[in-house]
């Protein structure tokens, strides 16, 4: 038995692969749900109706997709240069930390823009550590970005149990509520906030950057063929650092938006794995920046539906991780069989 490259690759099958993979994952997760004693059809019906059945559900879809769009970008941009940013979670926490610090100490009409800028800087700084270690010493960025997540999460936990714990929080590990000038405006009596629009704007800016600028071109060359980049005189190390900085900044903004748009205070568990979800989101979008919106919305749906399952059946939100990993595994497996065939 051996493996042979197919002469003709079916374009239809290749393009429908993501959809088939999503379907296969739904079936697989359904079997698992059935296994833990939940009727999968009923569960999927609840997920759909809670998301698309009301104004509130639909608004939540956008609310949950917003951090996912940003963390998806935070992973996808370094990925274009061939780098793995597994640290979006920590970068998000660092952005949330500095945004809260500004909100609680420097209330002013300029608080929101200052929070955005500083969150981006702190997220980028957190990504700079693994980036510079990769550029200077070839330190594996997968391990270093991941380990820094734990440092950032413990840092925020330390703050809300210690120096930043609020005065009126009845001993909960929370900071005080932000003053109104430091919270993002909301629309339509829902949790839809200004950050949702900003996230879409950032996608558009990144799309233009990678479509129209020479920087975007250089990144693509480094990612596709590092040797060719060297011949073309592109400084690979610079690209490593810059793409990671952009990724970190976007993840930092995600943290600021969650804090200022949703929670209105600093607390320990800001993110149910949004940073990690950025990885499958980016892989599903295949690095295509506009496609990130679609794949983040799919995952946003899973989070909204997932929390509906959590309240209905008390199934942990971890079920979303199973779906995320299966979609990607089905895609990479499926792609193989599109491109190759097994002959006897």
């Amino acid at each position, binding site marked *: 038995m051996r493996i042979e490259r197919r002469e003709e690759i079916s374009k239809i099958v290749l393009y429908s692969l993501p959809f088939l993979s999503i379907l296969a994952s739904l079936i697989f997760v359904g079997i*698992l749900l059935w296994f*833990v004693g939940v009727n999968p059809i009923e569960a999927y019906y609840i997920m759909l109706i809670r998301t698309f059945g009301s104004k509130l559900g639909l608004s939540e879809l956008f609310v949950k997709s917003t951090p996912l769009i940003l963390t998806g970008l935070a992973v996808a941009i370094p990925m274009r240069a061939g780098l*793995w940013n597994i640290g979006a979670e920590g970068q998000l926490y660092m952005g949330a930390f500095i945004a809260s610090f500004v909100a609680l100490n420097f209330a002013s009409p300029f608080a929101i823009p200052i929070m955005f800028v500083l969150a981006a800087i702190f997220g980028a700084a957190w990504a700079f550590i693994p980036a510079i270690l990769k550029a200077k010493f070839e330190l594996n960025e997968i391990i270093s970005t991941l380990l*820094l997540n*734990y440092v950032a999460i413990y840092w925020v936990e330390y703050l809300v149990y210690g120096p930043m714990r609020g005065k009126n929080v009845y001993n909960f590990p929370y900071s005080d509520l932000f003053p109104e000038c430091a919270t993002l405006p909301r629309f339509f009596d829902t949790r839809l906030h200004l950050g949702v629009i900003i996230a879409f704007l950032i996608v558009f800016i990144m799309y233009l950057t990678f479509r129209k600028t020479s920087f975007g071109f250089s990144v693509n060359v480094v990612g596709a063929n590092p040797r060719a980049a060297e011949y073309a005189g592109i400084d690979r190390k610079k690209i490593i650092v810059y793409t990671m900085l952009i990724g970190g900044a976007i993840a930092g903004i995600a943290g600021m938006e969650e804090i200022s748009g949703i929670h209105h205070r600093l607390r320990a568990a800001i993110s149910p794995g949004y940073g990690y979800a950025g990885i499958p989101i980016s892989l599903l979008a295949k690095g295509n920046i506009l496609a990130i919106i679609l794949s983040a919305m799919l995952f946003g749906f899973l989070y909204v539906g997932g929390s509906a399952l959590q309240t209905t059946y008390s199934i942990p939100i971890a079920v979303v991780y199973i779906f995320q990993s299966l979609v990607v595994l089905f895609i*990479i497996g499926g792609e193989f069989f599109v491109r190759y065939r097994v002959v006897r």
Partner: protein
Amino acid sequence: MIEFIVSLLQASIRAGTPLLYATLGEMITEKSGILNLGVEGLMIMGAMSGFALSFITGNPWIGILAGGFAGLILAFIHGFFSITLKVDQTVSGLMLVLLGLGLSGLIGKSYIGMVANYIDPIAIPLLSSLPILGKILFTQDLLVYSSLLITVFIWFILHKTSFGLSIIAAGENPEAADTAGINVDLVRYICLLVGGFLIGVGGAYLSLAYAKLWTEGMTAGRGWICLALVIFSGWIPQRAVIGAYLFGGLDVLSFKLQAIGFTVPYQLLKMIPYIATILVLLLSLIKDKYRLKAPSALGKPYFRGER
């Protein structure tokens, strides 16, 4: 003071043992040329399955075996993608982390807060009554002792047997190994599965002997620390023992310091192992003599002839 150091060292070994199993498991996997980034996912599945099976059967040793097999099954998925299909090992490894965290969270939900039967320490007669060393080394549980035997065994297999030579060949130069009649894919599968089993046992140790409970996400990044420990130990089994105990020590330092009234906040002490891991990795990269020890074909799929 001596009492403090003795109890710190004793606890370091216990905290280091899950790391040692997982580090050894990843090491033999990498020796054959396969990079399994899913250690965290394998460990958490091991921890959950181990706890669940000990709870159901009442026998913690069945739990340990179940943990091993849970690791082995996830490793097999990685093998299917990275060895049989020869697709990107990074992607499939990372997805195993998510899969392990998700599955263990879903299936393990009903075991949160439950009490199972655990692995208890055994004091070795005579040796355990030695001053100082007796308490540190000889009042541990069987899995601590067996982890040291396994370390020696892996060293022996790698360096004293022809199968060990095949493993090293598959990891260093699969083309040459193939020419010499070694079935590269088979050798890699064996190492990956055995390695996955050991990683799963490490996870089961965590829930059944170290923490003695199951909670969602309880591995808390230990799998990633183990990936770094493989690099730190330069792919040498004996050195993994030192690395694992060192990091076990950093892990328990926070409780131990608190117990004697040291007032540094708990969360700041919890950061130490993660920062230390990065520093240690950095040191081992700066020193050239370590850098050369990575298997040359690590993470590269091997295509036999033209595909």
